[in-house]
């Protein structure tokens, strides 16, 4: 890194768990475990940490341990800024695993200046950019926009009934995360779906609006019910919107992107029958696997959990856990590549970037779609699955597919 902070006296406590290591590579983590998105952020952070513990307990990567130095920024962007400075200057990390749209955006310029590759939980299309604006960001799963485009393709192929179908976008205008894919989806529909999918007026509901009912009602009055609706919220608000549409007896098929998928959308507790009912039939894009799926990539996770006395029955081992684990494991792969040419202490941000960009069709054991990067491609994949809630459980109804299949 160019920060010049390598010589400082404050060095993090060295070495993670396992013995016999001959060096460490430091990765920084900026997670939200207690903030606004803590419900999904905490398992994600847990997954990322677990991967590191696991890999170190296996003797590291070619004998080199990963040290993950992470802090909870509680979705407070100024805190994220401080943590970033600490990771850069105090710990001199080679790469960072980040979280929300807010912190990722806020650090976008700095990581370029500091040359630190950054994997974010946020999958905004603009992070694909390989140029000067986000040149050190990488997308480890299909971008929100690609997810939305894929959903359009899926609807075109699977819709039973007449065309054109109507589709509404449900999001908060002005919210970086929520609004992120919407223009791209509209453009795609206009260019590719003419006469088949008609995007009708947006349904704008703020993330903090606890009572979307009237907005939906008003919408119905002016526009009628759409056939499909794509939402871009996290669990809580998706749930409220779908529930209220259910109460209004809408026949719309709601499809949530990325963060709407996953177990937590149905509130836990024995008394959740009302929610199970209201959410029945809800669909979401699934970028990462559920822990209960029988996949080769689950082996290490199960092994790790067992070593810790935990199991996938635990509430906190869920799809977001897998997502954190997988994201971190891509760094693991990059380190492996880097170690072919460099010694551990030579691995800085630039080397990491070089290594990441050599990743080619990395098999993630079914936990997620294979990823590839190159200097002019920072989007690891465009592939995803679709899941549907039936009786409170997610069922995969469409195996991996991606927007590139259609071009």
């Amino acid at each position: 890194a160019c920060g010049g902070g390598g010589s400082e006296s404050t060095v993090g406590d060295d070495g993670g768990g396992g013995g016999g290591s001959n060096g460490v590579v430091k990765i920084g983590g900026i997670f939200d475990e207690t903030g606004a998105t803590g419900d999904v952020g905490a398992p994600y952070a847990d997954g990322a940490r677990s991967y590191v513990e696991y890999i170190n307990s296996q003797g590291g990567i070619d004998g080199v341990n990963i040290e993950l130095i992470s802090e909870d920024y509680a979705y407070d962007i100024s805190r994220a800024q401080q943590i970033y400075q600490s990771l850069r200057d105090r710990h001199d990390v080679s790469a960072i695993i980040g979280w929300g749209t807010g912190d990722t955006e806020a650090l976008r310029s700095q990581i370029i200046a500091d040359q630190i590759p950054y994997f974010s939980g946020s999958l905004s299309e603009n992070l694909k950019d390989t140029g000067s604006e986000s040149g050190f960001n990488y997308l480890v799963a299909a971008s929100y926009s690609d997810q939305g485009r894929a959903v359009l393709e899926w609807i075109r192929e699977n819709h039973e009934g007449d065309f054109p179908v109507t589709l509404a976008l449900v999001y908060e205008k002005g919210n970086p995360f929520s609004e992120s894919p919407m223009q791209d989806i509209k453009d795609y529909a206009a260019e590719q779906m003419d006469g088949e999918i008609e995007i009708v007026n947006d349904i704008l509901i703020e993330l903090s609006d606890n009572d979307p009912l009237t907005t939906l009602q008003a919408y119905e009055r002016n526009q009628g019910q759409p056939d499909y609706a794509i939402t871009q919220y996290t669990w809580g608000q998706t749930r409220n919107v779908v529930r209220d549409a259910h109460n209004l007896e809408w026949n719309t098929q709601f499809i949530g992107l990325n963060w709407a998928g996953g177990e937590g959308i149905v509130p836990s507790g024995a008394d959740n029958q009302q929610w199970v009912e209201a959410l029945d039939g809800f669909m979401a894009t699934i970028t990462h696997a559920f822990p209960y799926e029988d996949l080769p990539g689950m082996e290490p996770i199960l092994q790790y959990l067992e070593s810790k006395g935990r199991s996938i029955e635990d509430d906190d081992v869920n799809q977001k856990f897998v997502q954190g684990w997988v994201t971190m494991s891509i760094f693991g792969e990059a380190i492996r590549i880097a170690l072919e040419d460099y010694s551990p202490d030579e691995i800085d941000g630039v080397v990491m970037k070089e290594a990441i960009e050599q990743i080619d069709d990395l098999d993630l054991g079914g936990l997620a779609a294979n990823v590839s990067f190159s200097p002019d491609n920072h989007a690891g994949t465009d592939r995803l699955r679709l899941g549907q809630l039936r009786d409170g459980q997610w069922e995969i109804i469409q195996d991996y597919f991606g927007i590139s299949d259609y071009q």
Partner: protein
Amino acid sequence: MGFLLQMIITGVVVGSIYALVALGFVLIYRASGALNLANGEFVLIGSYICLTLVAVYQIPFIFAFLLTLVFNVLLGMIVERVVLRPLINAPTISVIMATIGLSSLLAGFAHMIWGYQTQSYPPVFPSTPIRMGEIIISPVYLWSFIIVIIMLILFGLLFKYSKLGLAMRAVADDQMAASSVGISVKNVYLITWGFASLVAAVGGVLLGNINGVDATMATIGLTVLPVVILGGLDSILGAIVAGFLVGIIQNLTAGYLEPILGGGLKEVIPFIIVTLILMIKPHGLFGKGGIERV
């Protein structure tokens, strides 16, 4: 017409929750002249307590609810004793700041115990909405409406027929003079915080029934601020009326304005309205202003 009516009726019922939470603010303001920015956290904790009693300890809802009230009253009193009492003679803004600290403290406490995942509330009220012609109301909201009315009457009577109401206003007005006539500022604080916390618990239980409980529930504290101000910080009636009013305005906005002007207005509109109304009535609709004579 049916649509307009629907918007107004949903406005009223949603507003009843606002009114309830706003009531908590008004109580604290009346006794200490300060905003309790930890009100949302009291709501959150009340909600969690009731949930835990029902879900974990399998206590029938009605008893769990009553126990929750008791618990929250105690919580409010403990908070007063430990945090607010030492600040009795401090400037208002310090008290407000203390409640900000308190909100962080209570939130941390709630998170440590209950985590972040949304938990479903036991279905106390039927979840299928009641339909009357075109009009749809969730039973929860209907109940909250009824409960708000009961609370209004209860507190109205309390203030009318006990010395407490007078003592609270005296304390808020001039603590030194209040002590001089034999009002125990400490006791007034203690009781007020107990009541405010109780009201918050009721709000928490109702809200839990609507959207489930998770950490984000505490934001209701902020959402409801325009309501409190609109009604007038020291007016119980104001809190109730403004609660309904803001509910209705929000719904009318969602129903009529947003389709034209674009979304998101619903959340900002209370602030715009409040600012405008304050320009005409600087102490809200029912608030008593400061009196300055020379």
